[in-house]
């Protein structure tokens, strides 16, 4: 297939491009900078680089030309609401408009676990694709808000135009240079304030996640599906922090703060803000219940649906993933053999209907 990967120079994008190339796809790589990305697949004959910025429509026609499917990873992860709207929502609007103009009718959009409404999901229950979605995202941070809007945008647009679409919601994507997660708590240099202990972390190792994304593009069964991406056997906060600590040098100092205490503080914070300050105060995220619960509420996670739909089996276990992240360099991890590829049956749509939709 001919794939367009947006956000290809980002943390996840680099691995998605590598995986797509390994599976024999031709990949158009959309990047903002004119500089060649420092990745193992740079210069690969099946890679076409297109420089454009999704916040503007300029250059997007070239990017989507002759593409069978778009893997839409681009999103803003920092900045104020308006910066994140531009980088995530406006970017998606522009991409969808360019796809419509070019007649590209298949998209795999990367959403996030942040779209769930964690206040409405009971502790220790299983979070799945059917769990409630955040409806009042103003309580949440800018990232969660814009991902909710982005997902709605893709779903509504693709449904209206009868496109083939798949929404993937990865949990916490970790990998080289991205091993700490806000779901563990706060990182202040070598001191980690771990908010909770028994809450599970919905981790997905970046190479595992990248494979799931490419599989979704190839799979007919993935059409119109929303799938959570989580690796097998999610660890607890305590276990993951412990595994990381053992592998890092110098070792971080972990300061545990219990979930109950955090909940009490957040409850007090929100009450004081409501009663005394008319909800006008800006409170740190961890003291806002909607945000605290999104990070730390003890839940269970399942990857049953994605395994069933995509026949995806996370290739690397948690131990292997940590070892790869710490021992291999980024170039090695994204290296792709550029010798002529054997015909990979997976590189073709797994079902004629995909080809139909793509056409």
């Amino acid at each position: 297939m001919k794939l367009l990967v947006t956000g290809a120079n980002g943390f996840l994008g680099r691995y998605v491009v590598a995986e797509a190339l390994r599976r024999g796809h031709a990949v158009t790589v959309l990047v903002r900078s004119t500089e060649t990305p420092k990745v193992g697949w740079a210069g690969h004959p099946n890679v076409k680089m297109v420089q454009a910025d999704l916040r503007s429509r300029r250059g997007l026609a070239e990017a989507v030309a002759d593409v069978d499917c778009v893997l839409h990873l681009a999103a803003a992860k920092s900045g104020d609401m308006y910066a994140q709207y531009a980088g995530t929502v406006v970017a998606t609007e522009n991409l969808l408009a360019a796809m419509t103009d070019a007649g590209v009718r298949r998209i795999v959009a990367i959403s996030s676990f942040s779209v769930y409404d964690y206040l409405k999901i009971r502790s220790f229950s299983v979070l799945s694709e059917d769990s409630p979605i955040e409806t009042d995202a103003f309580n949440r941070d800018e990232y969660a808000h814009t991902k909710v809007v982005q997902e709605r945008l893709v779903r509504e647009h693709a449904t209206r135009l009868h496109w083939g679409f798949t929404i993937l919601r990865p949990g916490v994507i970790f990998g080289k240079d991205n091993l700490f997660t806000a779901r563990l708590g706060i990182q202040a240099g070598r001191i980690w304030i771990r908010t909770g202990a028994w809450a599970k972390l919905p981790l997905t190792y970046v190479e595992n996640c990248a494979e799931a994304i490419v599989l979704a593009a190839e799979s007919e069964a993935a059409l119109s599906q929303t799938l959570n991406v989580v690796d097998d056997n999610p660890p607890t906060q305590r276990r993951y922090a412990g595994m990381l600590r053992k592998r890092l040098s110098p070792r971080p100092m972990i300061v545990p703060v219990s979930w109950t205490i955090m909940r009490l503080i957040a409850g007090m914070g929100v009450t004081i803000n409501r009663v005394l300050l008319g909800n006008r105060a800006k409170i740190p995220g961890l003291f806002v219940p909607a945000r605290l619960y999104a990070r730390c509420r003890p839940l269970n996670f399942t990857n049953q649906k994605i395994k069933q739909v995509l026949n995806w089996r996370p290739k690397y276990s948690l131990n292997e993933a940590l070892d790869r992240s710490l021992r291999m360099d980024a170039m090695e991890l994204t290296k792709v053999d550029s010798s002529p590829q054997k015909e990979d049956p997976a590189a073709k749509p797994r079902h004629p209907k995909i080809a139909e939709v793509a056409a």
Partner: protein
Amino acid sequence: MAVVHQKFLPLRAAVIGTGKISEEHLRFLGTDPRVTLAAVCDLSPSLARYAVDRFGAERTFTDSRQMLAEAKPDVVHVLTPPGTHARLVSDALNAGAHVVVEKPVAPTHREFLELWSLAESRGRKIVEDHNYRFNEPVLEIERMVRNGELGEIREVDVRMALAIRKAGGRYMDTSLPHPSHRLPAGVIHEFITHLCYLTLRFLPTFERVAAAWSKHGDDTIFKYDYLDALVIGGPVHARIRFTSHSAPDCFTVRVGGTRGWAETDLFQPHVRAVVPRTGGQQLSPLVNQFANGVTLMGSSIRGFRNKVLQKTPYEGLRTFLDQTYDALRTGTEPPVTFEDMDRAGRLIEALLDDANRV
């Protein structure tokens, strides 16, 4: 009677451009009982919808002309990049609406005068946002000047330091350069109106101007990143500075007169005044120090409260809009007059004039 009744009806307001600055306008428009937020318009339907969800606008549009035709606003807030103002302001005036517009009204003074002429022919008003003029510390210094506490004004110093060159910041974005890079003074043009109208509050006229426009950074996108200018009107000397090379961010205004001086930093609000105090010449320095210490402590507490309650340096915008809507409803002179805008525009032109460059 009909006219009297009209005065009590809420004005129908519309906003074009729902970027960052719109938040401050929409917060006012969404809550003020004298205004109905009739419509918002943005090229991005999602951004327009965000404004509706958050501030309660009645309708959204992606085409400004369609919005003017269908929503029929009494007042249009033009909050898009300056390069687009001329067309959008003209359209709004031609549709019979007053215009509140973010600074600068137009990239050049000539274009501003053309728009003003159009407004006059339509019997409408253009009001440029001079929000910092309405911040409490500036109003306090103006009060001191009016009361003669500083004596005859002789010196004005307005200085802004902003980290516009911060890596990853919106002005350093090379893949999608900020529209202000295309303005005559580049990114500094985004802020120069503020510097000029604040200077002119204390410098009624100006005859001589010398401006050093510099670029000390080694990038390719900035035109200028430093302005150091001297403006002289009669016996009053004013200095206007903009820098992106010193930290932290600040926006200071210092006014000196024949009796004393007062200063503020609008980003960390306080007013420090050194004036003759009770106790005569001998004790005035001591009393000034004590009085300013007490003031500074009070400002620290207010600063903390403002931080928690998310009161930003845009606090003056609400006062500006409040007075503007009062004027538009009653048909009186808006708080930012033609003379205010004209003088600020002429000073900007003078600063940019090749003949005045150092």
